[in-house]
């Protein structure tokens, strides 16, 4: 009872007087016991407790200023003792420079790689888009039934767009736009820039106002035959007009048509397609599209009203979409009818595959950091064991457990802080390196296409994330700080705990801090760390192995052409200057001039280049069968004989085009093998009649040749049926000049430019690329993913090997005397080897097993990025497990060999 009263008195008293008050009470109680007996003393004590409790508020109030003062003093004491810890830690780092360097470097690599990849994630997925209230911007998609069933998100025709927005209630404003290349001539050199065809509402949807001049009127934008006017970007204004404000009176030749410049948009605005420098009104540039309901060419952007949620917009669009279906449906209404839907621009800023790829790589690099942390933890634990004697001395001199743990915590914080700062340096180096690989900051992450997915320009993800957006901004640095803090927590807990658990007496009794009391069996926590490291590394290696195998499969996929020494250039003959007579003449003349260039082996015109995302599609039917009977879609391209020669596409049956395949002669066509197999299974295609919906071939043509399949869409997409029409019988102004040389293609580009200038000085040459560059473009996503995952997996492997080596080496050096005794007592070298390697093998085996199970679960996220390989490919998993197992055992073997060299006498003497 006395205790309870004292306890009550204690808690009722402010801390500053607690000791004195309780002491005084005890003194008085004992005094009363002696003079008046225990009973009276008890009574007094309870009276006293009641009184103290009653006056407690006054006492606390009176004591507050004094308590406050004392607290300030106490805290400054803590601060100075923390400073003392910091100084001690720095001294300790100086004494072990090797350890410090390894620790900081490990963290710098881990944190740096994470920061760099996060900078990419930030640019691709997080950074706000540079438009006014971009959160309300939505991309509206037309949903069209697909041949295979289901609905396909696609883009709009002008009439369907008008039908959709008629009386709509959910958007403040809507607009159409389509990105495309523009050939500029007139003032200055001819050049090709990216631009956008837009409706007049486009700038207001994106909330942009001109810095000079005006925007389009609705008349200019949506009436055929309006005066051609153009708006230019700040960059084009600076580059082409030297920021001259008199630009507004100037004219510009755009694709051969004279446009007046009426406005300049603010600096940095590049439109929704991300790299536009010129804008022209839809009604002028695409006059014929105004009345074409099936001319699906435009993406639709809209700003939703603040009171309309995204869900409300989507459900309203379902209703509006049925109006589009009613107005333009062919045949009876079916379940699969056209409709419309919308997504926020943030959801579609990159397509799902690219998003997934960057997140996977972020995950992978996170694993690397985790391994780095495990490694560092291991090092620190090893160090803290080595320092147990020092800790024991400190504890026996009166340092509290918390104080010792704090010392270790501060060391971890300092290491992680240094690692974080060095990590930022590593990240900026990595990004600078990536910058030199992608020197053009206007390089855009093109929308990669999932294997087999239909490509519709502009309908998949937006592609407006450019390499120029990647950098170390505040968000990225905040991420780095967060990672550094997390790292500190991860690496500090175990060593601090272990150090503070040191028992001073047994530790100090053993000379030199070496204890033979514990055998090899006891490396508990470190065994778990090493096992975890092996598991993490295995998951990474499995991912990298799968990506590498996928990339090599892709690399070895034949696209059907011989890509070496081939160059191609797009030449678009504007219809204003070239007609059906002069166009073919120009094409023929240029071909002859190019063929005469030294080193040129063959040259031809082709409409479509391999792995360029696919070209035109049209319907095919087989006369005398009528067109409407059955709709089949076929790829269509125009070509001359030299196209197949230059790309070395073999003619497997029949003949190639010839110069006699001209207008006036019987119409002929060439098909690919897939088409021949699909349409005439078991028969020869030669001599069969086909008709296609484009190029004036509706009345039929004879198949005269079959060529090998070419992958036109992507590397991953298997070829479909294709039909080629002879350019001589079906003129196209927009063609690719394809040239094969005997040797390297260097210098050829200049020669071609010279020949083109010789014929037409105002004709821009677009997209001059070697075939190998095209394949590189088509492979970049797989290559980059494979390369990054391999780099991280390699780093993980290295870190793991270092970690295992470190633990084993330390273990062996701690057990030197034990090994010496065993050898002195007659243990063979094999016994010692087994002793050292036995546990390590077990840990490796457990780590590999856990890692394999985790890999089976985790590699599934890679599925959509892989080509012709399953995420659980057993060969890859077994191979990486083998590699990791060997590396792990090798890392154990080196210290184990050192154990064999232990001299029994020396070892025993040291005891």
């Amino acid at each position: 009872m006395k205790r309870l009263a004292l306890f009550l008195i204690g808690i009722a008293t402010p801390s500053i007087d607690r000791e004195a008050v309780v002491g005084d009470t005890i003194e008085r109680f004992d005094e009363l016991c002696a003079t008046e007996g225990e009973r009276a003393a008890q009574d007094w004590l309870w009276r006293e407790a009641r009184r103290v409790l009653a006056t407690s508020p006054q006492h606390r109030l009176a004591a507050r200023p004094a308590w406050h003062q004392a607290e300030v003093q106490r805290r400054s004491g803590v601060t100075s003792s923390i400073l003392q810890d910091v100084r001690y830690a720095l001294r300790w780092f100086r004494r072990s420079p090797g350890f410090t360097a390894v620790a900081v470097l490990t963290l710098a690599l881990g944190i740096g790689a994470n920061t760099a990849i996060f900078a990419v994630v930030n640019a691709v997925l997080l950074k706000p888009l540079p438009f006014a209230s971009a959160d309300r911007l939505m991309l509206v998609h037309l949903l069209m039934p697909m041949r295979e069933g289901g609905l396909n998100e696609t883009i709009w025709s002008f009439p369907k767009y008008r039908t959709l927005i008629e009386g709509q209630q959910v958007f403040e404003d809507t607009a159409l736009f389509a990105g495309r290349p523009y050939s500029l001539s007139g003032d200055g050199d001819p050049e090709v820039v990216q631009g956008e065809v837009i409706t007049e509402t486009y700038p207001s949807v994106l909330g942009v106002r001109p810095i000079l001049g005006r925007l389009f009127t609705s008349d200019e934008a949506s009436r055929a035959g309006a005066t051609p006017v153009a708006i230019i970007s700040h960059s084009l204004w600076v580059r082409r007009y030297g920021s001259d404000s008199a630009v507004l009176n100037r004219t510009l030749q755009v694709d051969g048509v004279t446009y007046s410049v009426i406005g300049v948009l603010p600096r940095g605005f590049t439109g929704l397609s991300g790299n536009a420098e010129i804008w022209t009104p839809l009604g002028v540039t695409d006059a014929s599209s105004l009345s074409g309901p099936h001319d699906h060419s435009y993406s639709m952007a809209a700003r939703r009203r603040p009171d309309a949620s995204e869900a409300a917009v989507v459900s309203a669009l379902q209703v509006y979409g049925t109006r589009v279906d009613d107005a333009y449906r062919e045949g009876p209404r079916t379940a699969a009818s056209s409709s419309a839907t919308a997504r926020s621009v943030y959801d579609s800023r990159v397509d799902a595959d690219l998003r997934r790829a960057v997140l996977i790589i972020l995950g992978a690099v996170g694993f690397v950091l985790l391994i780095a942390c495990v490694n560092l933890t291991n090092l620190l634990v090893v160090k803290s064991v080595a320092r147990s004697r020092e800790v024991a001395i400190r504890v026996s001199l009166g340092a509290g457990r918390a104080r010792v743990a704090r010392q270790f915590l501060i060391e971890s914080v300092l290491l992680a802080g240094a690692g974080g700062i060095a990590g930022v340096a590593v990240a900026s180096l990595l990004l600078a390196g990536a910058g030199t690989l992608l020197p053009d900051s206007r390089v855009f992450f093109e929308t990669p296409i999932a294997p087999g997915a239909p490509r519709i320009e502009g309908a998949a993800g937006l592609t407006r994330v450019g390499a120029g957006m990647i950098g170390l901004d505040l968000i990225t640095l905040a991420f780095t700080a967060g990672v550094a803090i997390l790292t500190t927590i991860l690496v500090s807990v175990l060593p601090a705990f272990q150090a503070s658990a040191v028992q001073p007496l047994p530790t100090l009794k053993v000379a030199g801090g070496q204890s033979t009391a514990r055998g090899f069996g006891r490396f508990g926590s470190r065994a778990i760390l090493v096992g975890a490291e092996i598991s993490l590394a295995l998951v990474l290696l499995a991912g990298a192995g799968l990506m590498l195998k996928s990339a090599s499969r892709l690399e070895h996929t034949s696209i059907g052409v011989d890509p070496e020494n081939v160059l191609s250039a797009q030449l678009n003959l504007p219809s204003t200057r070239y007609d059906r007579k002069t166009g073919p003449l120009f094409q023929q003349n240029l071909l002859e001039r190019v063929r005469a260039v030294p080193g040129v082996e063959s040259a031809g015109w082709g409409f479509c280049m391999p792995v360029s995302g696919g070209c035109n599609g049209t319907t095919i039917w087989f006369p005398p069968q009528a067109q409407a009977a059955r709709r089949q879609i076929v790829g269509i391209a125009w070509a001359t004989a030299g196209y197949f020669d230059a790309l070395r596409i073999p003619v497997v049956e029949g003949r190639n085009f010839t110069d006699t395949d001209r207008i006036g002669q019987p119409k002929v066509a060439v098909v690919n093998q897939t088409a021949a197999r699909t349409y005439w299974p078991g028969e020869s295609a030669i001599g069969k009649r086909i008709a296609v919906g484009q190029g004036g071939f509706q009345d039929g043509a004879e198949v005269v040749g079959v060529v090998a399949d070419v992958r036109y869409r992507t590397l991953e997409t298997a070829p479909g049926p294709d039909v080629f029409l002879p350019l001589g019988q079906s003129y196209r102004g927009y063609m690719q000049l394809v040239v094969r040389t005997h040797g390297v293609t260097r210098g050829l580009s200049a020669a071609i430019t010279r020949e083109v200038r010789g014929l037409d000085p105002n004709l821009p040459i677009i997209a001059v690329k070697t075939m190998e560059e095209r394949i590189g473009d088509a492979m970049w996503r797989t290559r980059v993913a494979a390369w990054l995952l391999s780099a991280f997996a390699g780093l993980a492997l290295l870190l793991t090997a270092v970690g295992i080596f470190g633990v084993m080496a330390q273990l062996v050096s701690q057990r030197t005397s034990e090994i010496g005794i065993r050898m002195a007592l007659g243990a063979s070298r094999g016994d010692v080897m087994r002793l050292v390697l036995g546990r390590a093998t077990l840990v490796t085996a457990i780590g590999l097993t856990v890692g394999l199970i985790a890999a089976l679960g985790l590699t599934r996220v890679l599925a959509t990025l892989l080509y012709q390989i399953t995420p659980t490919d057993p060969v890859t998993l077994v191979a990486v497990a083998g590699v990791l197992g060997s590396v792990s055992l090798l890392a154990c073997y080196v210290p184990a060999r050192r154990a064999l060299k232990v001299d029994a006498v020396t070892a025993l003497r040291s005891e």
Partner: protein
Amino acid sequence: MPTALGEFEQLVLLAMLRLGPDAYGANIRREIEKGTGRELSISAVYTTLQRLEQKGLVRSRMGEPLPERGGRRRKHAELLPAGAKALKAAYDGFAGMAAGIEHRLKAI
């Protein structure tokens, strides 16, 4: 002008004057209980000591741990010159007012 003192403050200061350098919580209370004949709470003494200390009239210091107090230290209080002056002023005022009527006060 010396600090004005409350009644209990005067009692605590008087007790300290009686005890000299040995004054601490428990014996200050005992002195007051003896002198006034009333039982009082220890926290009343400490509350007043806190106030006097903040007014700059006394100074406190912790003593050595004592086994008879369960290893707890005493909080010693020392009367500062300002405290002594304030106490004298209070006493002078009281004595001045009481001068000549002591017999009547005793008779009440």
